[in-house]
Structure formats: structure tokens, C-alpha cells
């Protein structure tokens, strides 16, 4: 009914002599949001793993907890801790990267930028190396070193335990 009326007013406004009367292009809110994909950029100081690539969902290990980011997420900045960034690509393929921590910036218009120092897929890690480091870090953390040394060793323990759990899963 309304579109009929619109057509008629358009026709009335059109010059009487013009033979081609086109209906005005209507643009609604639903059309402005066309994509349900999020553009992901995953960058390291030495490499860009993803460069504004369309993906479906990204799960990030934020300090405040693991969060999933879909298209049209509320803009926010999240500090990351060491953990797995889980990327669900178009077509359902799933990719996992273990990142060292960094920042994830959810920008308006469905853009997500993740900056990290290091990011590797799980198959690039050696479980034995993780175990031997973990044993060493645990020794320092429970030893009688300075407060600084113990705090640093505890960070290592936390990172390595997360990594170990990820590798075993």
C-alpha cells in the first residue's frame, strides 16, 4: 500500500513528458548491513597472518575471559593474555593460533584487529620443550629468588601451563 503511494507520488513529481518513470530506490536499515562476516587482521611485528580477511567468528583470550566476536560486535578494546585465538573461517574451517598476548581492537563496521608479539599454530610447538621449561619455571617460582624473579617465573608457568593444556587437548 505504502509503496504504491510512493510510486504514485514519484510519478506525480516526474515531468509529465518523460516516458520512463523509475520507482525511487528505497534503502532500508536492513540493507545497510549486508555482511554477516567480520574482517579480521591478525598482525605480528614481523608478519601479517590475516589481512582484513572475512571470517565468521573469532574467539579471543581476553584478560576478562574468553570472548567470541561476531560481525557487528560492539566496539571495544581488549587486553589479551597468552592463549588460543580460535578463528572460524568462511566455509566452517577452524584455525587455532597460540598467541603471546597483545591487544584486540573491535572497530565499528565489523573490523577486528589483533596485535600480538608471537602467534603460532599448535603443530609448531614441541610438547617436550614446554615440559622442560615448565619444570624449570616451577623451580624458580617456588624458590627463594627475588620477588621480581618469582613474579616473572609465575608468568612463565601460567603461559606454559595454558600452552600445555592446549597441546594436550
Amino acid at each position, binding site marked *: 500500500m505504502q509503496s504504491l503511494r510512493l510510486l504514485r507520488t514519484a510519478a506525480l513529481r516526474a515531468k509529465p513528458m518523460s516516458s520512463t518513470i523509475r520507482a525511487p530506490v528505497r534503502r532500508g536499515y536492513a540493507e545497510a548491513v549486508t555482511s554477516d562476516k567480520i574482517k579480521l587482521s591478525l598482525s605480528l611485528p*614481523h608478519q601479517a597472518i590475516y589481512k582484513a580477511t572475512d571470517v565468521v567468528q573469532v574467539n579471543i583470550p581476553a*584478560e576478562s575471559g574468553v570472548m567470541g566476536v561476531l560481525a557487528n560486535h560492539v566496539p571495544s578494546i581488549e*587486553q589479551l*593474555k*597468552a592463549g588460543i585465538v580460535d578463528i572460524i573461517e568462511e566455509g566452517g574451517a577452524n584455525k587455532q593460533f*597460540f598467541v*603471546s*598476548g*597483545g591487544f584486540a581492537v573491535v572497530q565499528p563496521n565489523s573490523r577486528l584487529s589483533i596485535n600480538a*608479539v*608471537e602467534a*603460532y599454530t599448535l603443530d*609448531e*610447538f*614441541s610438547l617436550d*620443550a*614446554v615440559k622442560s*621449561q615448565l619444570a624449570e*619455571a616451577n623451580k624458580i617460582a617456588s624458590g627463594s629468588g627475588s*620477588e*621480581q624473579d*618469582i*613474579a*616473572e617465573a*609465575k*608468568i*612463565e608457568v*601460567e*603461559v*606454559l601451563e595454558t*600452552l600445555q593444556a592446549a597441546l594436550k587437548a
Partner: protein
Amino acid sequence: MAFAWKQAGVSYNKYLSIAAQAIRKSLKEQARVAAERRSGNELKVSRWENGKQQEAKYLGNSEQ
């Protein structure tokens, strides 16, 4: 547990470098060598006086 390191005076920047170092050391041989070569830094300092460079002083590398 979260931010326990912050109470010990460790900055987030330091946290990141420790985490990144732990990750690099956990890699398999081939990737680890490539990563460690990339992560190394060296620092040299020298003063300029009267338009001439004075003796360069080596301040060490990131491994030390």
C-alpha cells in the same frame, strides 16, 4: 590470579616479552631457530662531538 604480576611491579609490556620468550622457546627446532634469530637485538652507543663520531660503546644484546 589475574594481574598477580602487576602487584609485583611487572608491566604489561614486560609480561608480553616474557610470554613471547616462553613461546619462542617452546617451538620445534626449525621454527625456534628462525624466531630466535628474529628476536635478537643489539645496542651500540656512541657520542658525536665536533662533528665526529666518538668511540662506539657496546651495551650488549637481548640475550644477556
